[in-house]
């Protein structure tokens, strides 16, 4: 009962925020709407016993990524409103909406079919890497255990991803210099990463 209400409210916030992102003419408004959605999702994480994730969601997404967005918007001064009345690409918008709705449609059909055939949408094997509902352990501990056992390799290689992000940002943010000669490391514009 409570969960229904929570779900309903969160869903409204999430969807509303999502529409906000898409429909706001000013990118700053879009970013703020995104925050709303992210918060709504965090709430639903909590509702599904993913407390730690909810916290990370708020901190990393709302706290870092959206801030980064806003930072770039300000940096580039692109906070001008976008004219959403016109669509320069003929047919793009109706096609996008039809295509999107169709995509949603097939996704729903898939769920309905699965539900019809199997009485559940989650047909998978249960608790392959660890029981979520095991009361003996904290959620964080469970996550930590799985992260360092079953997903150890994945965890390790995320570091490569981050290195790439750093190098990539460095490369891209560097000013295009003259025809020849390399740019000194000290002169590089760097973008701070909030990790």
């Amino acid at each position, binding site marked *: 009962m409570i969960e*229904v209400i929570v779900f309903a409210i969160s*869903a409204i916030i*999430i969807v509303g925020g*999502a529409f906000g*992102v*898409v429909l706001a003419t000013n990118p700053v408004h*879009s*970013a703020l709407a*995104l925050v709303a*959605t*992210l918060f709504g999702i965090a709430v*639903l994480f909590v509702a599904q016993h993913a407390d*730690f*994730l909810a916290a*990370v*969601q708020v901190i*990393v*997404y709302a706290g*870092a*990524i959206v801030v980064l*967005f806003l930072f*770039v918007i300000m*940096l*580039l*001064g*692109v906070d001008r409103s976008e004219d959403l009345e016109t*669509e320069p*690409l003929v047919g*793009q918008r109706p096609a*996008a*909406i039809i*295509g*999107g*709705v169709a995509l*949603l449609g097939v996704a729903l059909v898939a*769920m309905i079919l699965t539900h019809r055939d199997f009485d*559940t949408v*989650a047909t*998978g094997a249960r*608790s392959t*890497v660890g*029981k*979520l509902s095991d009361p003996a352990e904290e*959620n964080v501990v*469970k*996550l930590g255990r*799985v992260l360092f056992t*079953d997903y150890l390799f*994945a965890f390790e290689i*995320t570091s490569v*991803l*981050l290195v*790439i*992000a*750093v190098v990539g*940002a460095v490369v*891209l*943010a560097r000013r295009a210099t003259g025809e020849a000669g390399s740019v000194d490391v000290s002169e590089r514009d760097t*973008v701070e990463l909030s*990790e």
Partner: protein
Amino acid sequence: MTLADLHVTETWYLVLGAVLFTIGAIGLLVRRNPLVMFMCIELMLNAVNLTFVAFSRALDDVGGQVIVFFVLVVAAAEVVVGLGIIVALMRTRPGATADDISTMKG
């Protein structure tokens, strides 16, 4: 049927996730500001996160929640690089929209 009879099953979350994913996808298709387009991608990734967590609970499996971490990291890395590309782009062509960068075609 009362509200009390209703149970929030994973299907609800899945449907919500699908809706969110769709909105994100449509957003990317209709918006011209590259930054907003990136936000739409974030919406899609969050929709997937929601789906993972929902499955995680339905399957009683920790794995689904752990995956969300990785998605977060990927999202962060993507945003960094994506914004880097936009910054580089906007420097030479301030105020460019996604439709403006279309010199190569055919």
